[in-house]
Structure formats: structure tokens, C-alpha cells
């Protein structure tokens, strides 16, 4: 008997292990929170999601908030499947959000409700113009620092998710949390609003530090909730199950 996976069309991430965990991929138009502490591989995974999309002919957009996109590209894992043509052809686009802030005149440390609307409109207008089907914002936490209150963060994430979903765009919002975090996002709001949560972490076991990935929530599909160990390699993110025999011997 095959498992019921619902009726939703899938956005195949191209990351074999993740697509298996998600029974075929992320439900299309979902907004996913990809969360974890530093050094867990969030940016690499998000970027690989976009590259695979571009390779399948889907327009893909990386909105960089914390790092200049040139620097980002220089530091990424030299993927064997990555081709410069993806960028030259416009299938894979990079936008630096600080540049957009400047153009929109958002120079104050805290955004007003009107500015939130302006920012959402700005991002969705670029996505619409480019025909974006996959989008990554790295990181949403940095944007949230300019929003300050949970009401504004809720408003921003809700409006952004709605706008991108209306464009049939599958999105990953990268979220940073401190290592021993009890919640899945810095402000505790983003996790409640997103359609899915993928948690990446560093797990210490007998002095060894393992990178792990776990899908906590994913609307519109069945999914594994088990923890997996991952490796960032030139052929992309690879995943294997965490051996349970070791989970009690931290």
C-alpha cells in the first residue's frame, strides 16, 4: 500500500534525501522556515534548492540580507552540478536586500507598518517580474530585527507568505536561532505562521559534532519526523538516518 501524500503538487527540492523525507518534495507554494544555529548548513541547503530549481527551468531568486551576494557566491561549496549559465541566463537571480532598503528609502533602524507593506510589495514585485517559482530569503531573522515587535513580524511574514503563495512561488525563509534554543525561531512568531519547519542543528555525541536535519512540520504532506545526519559535499547535501543507538549517549 502506497502512503497517501495528498493532492498537492510538489516542488521537488532536488536534494534526494529531503525529497524522500517529504514524500516527494515541498508542497508547491508553501513557505518554509529553514531554521538552525550557525554552521549547520542552512544557506548551502537553501542555495542548492534554488540551483536544482533553476536546472529544472524554474526561475529562482535568492534574497540576501546579511551577506553580499558576490561574497556568498565566492564562498559556496563548489557544486559539481552548478553552471554559471544558470546565472547568465537569469534562471538564478540574486538580490541584496540592503540595496532594496536604500532604494525604498528605508533607512531607519525600525520599520513602520507602511514600510512593511512597501517591503513585501517590493519583494513580491521582483518575484512577479522575474516569474520566480522558488525564492529564498537569507535570513528572515535579520529582517525581523528591523521589525522589533511580534505584531509587525507576524504581519510581515503573513503578508509575504500570502504574496508569494499567490505567485505560486515555493519559498524558504532562513531563520537563525541560538544553539540551545527552545523555539524554532528567534522571535517565536515566524514558526507559527510558516507552512513548514525544517530544523538544522549541530548534535554533539561523545565529543563528535554531527550536522542534523529534521522536518518538524510540513503542511500538505506526510513527512518523516526522524532526525537525519547530513554532509555538505560537491554533489550536494547528502542525508542518512541518525543511528538511534547513539542518541542516548550524548
Amino acid at each position, binding site marked *: 500500500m502506497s502512503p497517501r501524500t495528498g493532492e498537492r503538487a510538489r516542488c521537488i527540492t532536488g536534494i534526494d534525501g529531503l525529497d524522500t523525507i517529504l514524500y516527494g518534495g515541498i508542497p508547491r507554494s508553501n513557505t518554509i522556515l529553514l531554521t538552525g544555529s550557525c554552521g549547520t548548513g542552512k544557506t548551502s541547503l537553501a542555495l542548492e534548492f534554488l540551483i536544482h530549481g533553476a536546472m529544472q527551468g524554474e526561475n529562482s531568486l535568492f534574497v540576501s540580507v546579511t551577506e553580499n551576494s558576490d561574497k556568498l557566491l565566492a564562498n559556496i561549496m563548489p557544486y559539481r552540478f552548478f553552471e554559471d549559465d544558470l546565472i547568465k541566463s537569469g534562471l538564478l537571480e540574486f538580490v541584496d536586500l540592503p540595496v532594496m532598503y536604500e532604494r525604498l528609502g528605508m533607512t531607519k533602524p525600525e520599520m513602520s507598518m507602511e514600510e512593511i507593506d512597501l517591503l513585501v510589495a517590493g519583494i513580491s514585485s521582483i518575484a512577479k517580474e522575474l516569474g520566480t517559482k522558488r525564492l529564498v530569503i537569507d535570513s528572515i531573522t535579520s529582517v525581523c530585527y528591523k521589525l522589533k515587535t511580534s505584531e509587525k513580524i507576524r504581519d510581515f511574514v503573513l503578508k509575504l507568505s500570502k504574496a508569494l503563495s499567490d505567485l505560486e512561488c515555493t519559498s524558504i525563509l532562513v531563520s537563525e536561532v541560538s544553539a540551545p534554543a527552545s523555539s524554532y525561531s528567534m522571535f517565536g512568531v515566524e514558526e507559527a505562521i510558516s507552512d513548514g519547519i525544517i530544523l538544522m542543528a549541530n548534535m554533539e555525541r561523545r565529543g*563528535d559534532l554531527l550536522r542534523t536535519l529534521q522536518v518538524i512540520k510540513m503542511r500538505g504532506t506526510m513527512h518523516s519526523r526522524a532526525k537525519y545526519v547530513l554532509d555538505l559535499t560537491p554533489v550536494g547535501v547528502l542525508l542518512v538516518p541518525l*543511528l538511534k543507538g*547513539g542518541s542516548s549517549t550524548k
Partner: protein
Amino acid sequence: MSDATNIANKLARELSEAPPSSAISLQMSVDNYLDVLRGTLDMFANSRKIDTIYVTSTISSGALKRVLNALEIDTSRTYFVDCISHIMMGASAAQKDDHTTLVESPTMLENIMLKVEYLIRLSQSKEKLVVIDSINSLAIHNNNWILSEFLHILVSGLRARDVYTVILSVEEHSTPEINNMVNLVCDMGIRAIAKEE
């Protein structure tokens, strides 16, 4: 023909009779280690143009390569997953080699699986062989429960992809628990031990 040649020949012949996707328990004596290397890597894998992924937790890949060179065994199709050099603080030399991938410690069993998976994806050869050298040295660093789980997941994954798996165990160092663990996941067993005088 010497005992050593006999063992290597017999081993290569028995491996050749196994269908792809077979998991083979290869029990040997310490004295027959070199014959096992020749029979497995040279007479079986190299002669059939099979890429070998050799997981070593017994001796460093550097030492192993020196042994293979001394035996005049071509290593161009052999890729090493070295689980021992890093903890011996001898990583830098091994890192320079394209054919060697390091795992920080033999306790990082998931990382061994990940490196094997990575090398399988890189390999262009139609048939592939994964050698685990050895279950006894992995047992020094891991308890039987996690090691058994590791073997089950690794072998099941390799079998599904038609990859040969050979799990080496050293008879002098084995225990009934380790033998049971290996037998549980293997389809056949080969004993590569010279007959006693």
C-alpha cells in the same frame, strides 16, 4: 602454488561467483591479510574494472597504500574512507590525496555512510565494491547495538543499489556477538585462512 596464492585465488573466485548486491562476510586470520587484499582488490575488483570504496578503521590509508604498492596492486580504482588518520593526528598528508576521504573518528558511523554514499555517486564504474576493514576495529570504538544498526542500514542501502559489500573480520579478534552481527546482514561467508599444518 603457495598457500598465499591459493587463498587469494580462491577468494577472488568465490567473490566472482557472488551476484551484485551481495553482502559477504570475509573472515580472515591476521597472517592472511595481504592475501585478502590481493584477492579482493586485485584479482577480483581490478580484474573486473570495479571501483572499490575501502573503509579503513584498522590502519591508515597511507599505510595501506604503501602495502598495496609493495604488493604491486594498482590503486587507481580504489577510494579510501579513512577513519583513523584524523584521530592519529596524521590527517594532513592524507588530505592531499584525491583518492582519500577522511572521517574524523570511527565513532562517526553516520559520516562513514555519508562518505561511502558520496564516493558511490562519484564513481563511474558499472559495478562497485565497498570493503569494511574491519568490523573488529569498528567494534573497539562503538558498542554492538549502534554497530549492528550501522551495518544493517549501510548494507541494505548498498544492496538496493547492486553494490557488493565485503565485511572483513579477523578471526583471532572476533567474538560470537560480532560474528552474529555480521552474519545477520550478510548473504554468504568466506573464510580466508590458510590450512593448518
